[in-house]
């Protein structure tokens, strides 16, 4: 394998970080430590981690509602992410965004959108800026199989293609939009087939294989930086948990079988990478376990950080509305 060992271990670390972050979120959400929706990314870690490993800090990403994994994959801070979920002043957005709106502009995370497909035109705009300025940064948009039916995505793919913009469209096909199967809602066999309508390459990738996701994104980034335009990558993956925390208590109908869940869990993305690393003698079992333990400890510290951070003062209600402030009515 011609991928640097440090990068492989970094990808493993980020996948464990996401997994352990999400497990902790599920635990503290169930304990009532914070309110609101949260959408676990467990099972899909390889898609964001593989894609973001192909990017530089100066490249941009935009995410969606299921978006704790994206900033962690891009190198974001779990303490600030956790504090945001707790609604505290030390959160990424000072508690104003919450789970669905993490952002870190210092490392190119333009922010996440709870309206699906809506962040994709924004990512296209960042790439347009690269084109106008003659700079080499690229922009990557994450969206799901559900959002692949949004007009915003289709308009974005067309714009990116006609202007040959450095955009990587990454579809995380986790099979379901809440409870609705993509097979029932997407008119083509694969979301990646839609690339042909916009004259760009469409790549169908095993989204449980972080190395495959990484290599696909490297190719797309290379193409983008060379001025050859956008690429659509579909990572086939699976959401282990329910659509949103808390939804399991109110959902009335079954939409997937335990057998299906089990079959996907047998192809766990972290397990797949660890087996590769161990079988190719890139890392030992102990080294992999140590990464798991270290990320668990970091998530614990992040949770303490979040719990100890204060809630915003009432005066914060009127902060951050404007860059050039005006009086409030």
């Amino acid at each position, binding site marked *: 394998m011609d991928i640097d060992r440090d990068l492989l271990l970094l990808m493993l670390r980020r996948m464990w970080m996401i997994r352990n972050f999400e497990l902790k979120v599920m635990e503290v959400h169930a304990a009532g430590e914070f309110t609101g929706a949260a959408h676990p990314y467990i099972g899909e870690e390889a898609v964001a981690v593989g894609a973001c490993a192909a990017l530089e800090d100066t490249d941009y990403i935009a995410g969606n509602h299921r978006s704790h994994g994206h900033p962690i994959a891009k190198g974001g801070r779990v303490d600030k992410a956790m504090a945001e979920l707790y609604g505290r002043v030390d959160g990424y*957005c000072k508690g104003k965004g919450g789970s669905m709106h993490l*952002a870190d502009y210092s490392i190119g995370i333009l922010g996440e959108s709870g309206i699906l497909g809506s962040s994709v035109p924004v990512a296209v705009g960042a790439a347009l800026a690269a084109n106008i300025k003659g700079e080499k940064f690229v922009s990557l948009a994450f969206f799901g199989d559900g959002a692949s039916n949004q007009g915003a995505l289709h308009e974005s793919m067309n714009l990116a293609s006609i202007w040959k913009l450095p955009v990587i469209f990454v579809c995380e096909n986790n099979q379901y939009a809440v409870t609705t199967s993509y097979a029932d809602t997407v008119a083509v066999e694969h979301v990646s087939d839609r690339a042909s309508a916009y004259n760009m390459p469409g790549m169908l990738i095993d989204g449980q294989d972080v190395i495959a996701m990484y290599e696909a994104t490297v190719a797309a980034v290379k193409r983008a930086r060379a001025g050859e335009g956008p690429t659509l990558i579909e990572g086939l993956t699976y959401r282990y948990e329910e659509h949103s925390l808390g939804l399991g208590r109110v959902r009335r109908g079954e939409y997937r079988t335990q057998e299906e869940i089990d079959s996907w869990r047998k192809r766990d993305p972290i397990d797949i990478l660890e087996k590769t690393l161990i079988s190719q003698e890139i890392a030992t079992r102990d080294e992999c376990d140590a990464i798991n333990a270290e990320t668990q400890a970091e998530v614990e510290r992040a949770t303490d950080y979040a719990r100890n951070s204060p809630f915003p003062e009432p005066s914060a209600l009127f902060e951050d509305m404007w860059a050039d402030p005006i009086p409030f009515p």
Partner: protein
Amino acid sequence: MTQTVFIEAINQAIAEEMRRDENVFIMGEDIRRAVYGATANLLSEFGEKRVLDTPLSENGFFGAAVGASLVGMRPIVETLTSFMWVGMDQLISQAAKMRYMFGGQATLPVVYRATMFYGGGSAAHHSDRSYPMFMNMPGLKIVVPSNPADMKGLLKSAVRDNDPTIVFEDGTIFGMRGEVPDNEDLPQGELIVPFGEAKIVREGTDCTIVGIAASVNLALTAADQLAQEGISVEVIDPRTLVPFDKQTVLESVEKTGRLVIADPAHKVCSAASEIASIVAEEGFWSLQAPIQKVASEQVHIPYTPALEKLVYPTPEKIIAAVKRTLDV
């Protein structure tokens, strides 16, 4: 001073700002060939990279403007109010909300120039005067120029402002001529009209009329006729609705004791409604008569001129409203 047509003032503002700052670029439908006139000669001066013809994809390119603004560009988007509905998600979910939602990390110096073509038989789909809907949404600055000089100066301010701004350009006055100062005659070398500063267009003592966009000019026509009847009205142009200079209006009402608001938007939850509410809350003891709104009727815009002319504010409706406040 030079007599300048409204649409030329728009063109001057865009060209001057694009010359001043290479991060300013413009995108929209049919702008390279300047189908509405405001973007004339921009392509030849600034080239294809900074003058972008877009496909019919408002949600796509409204959002692309947001994204470009987030990473240091200053996009100007040309559109019509009629097409804003198609791109609403990007205007609301992204442009308006991003900065607050991300705790102040996002800065969006993006300008949407939305032309309001109404009054010319364009029917219900192409006659929108939709600024009140955007006033209701925090996060957007809203500009409503009524003459060429303000149009130029406010658009230049909008480009320099670091927040998302919608400039509602009143198509009924695209051909209006007015004095626009030459840059060399101005102490700072250019015309900048700041946001949040209303202008007292005409001083008077008996009644205050606040006009929105082209209705300022209707109010001035009304004021001329009322003057012949011995009624002195003060005409105020707020120029920007967000921010809104309530102090100038409240001080005027304190002097006149009466308020009429002329607003081409539909009357329910209009700009006039908000201004009336401010004066009712904060200027009530100055009032000697009920506030009068002269806004568009709460119907869609009919195509036939026989009916369309009944919808909007007119000098006659404004005169009648002023007289109601004076009980004459």
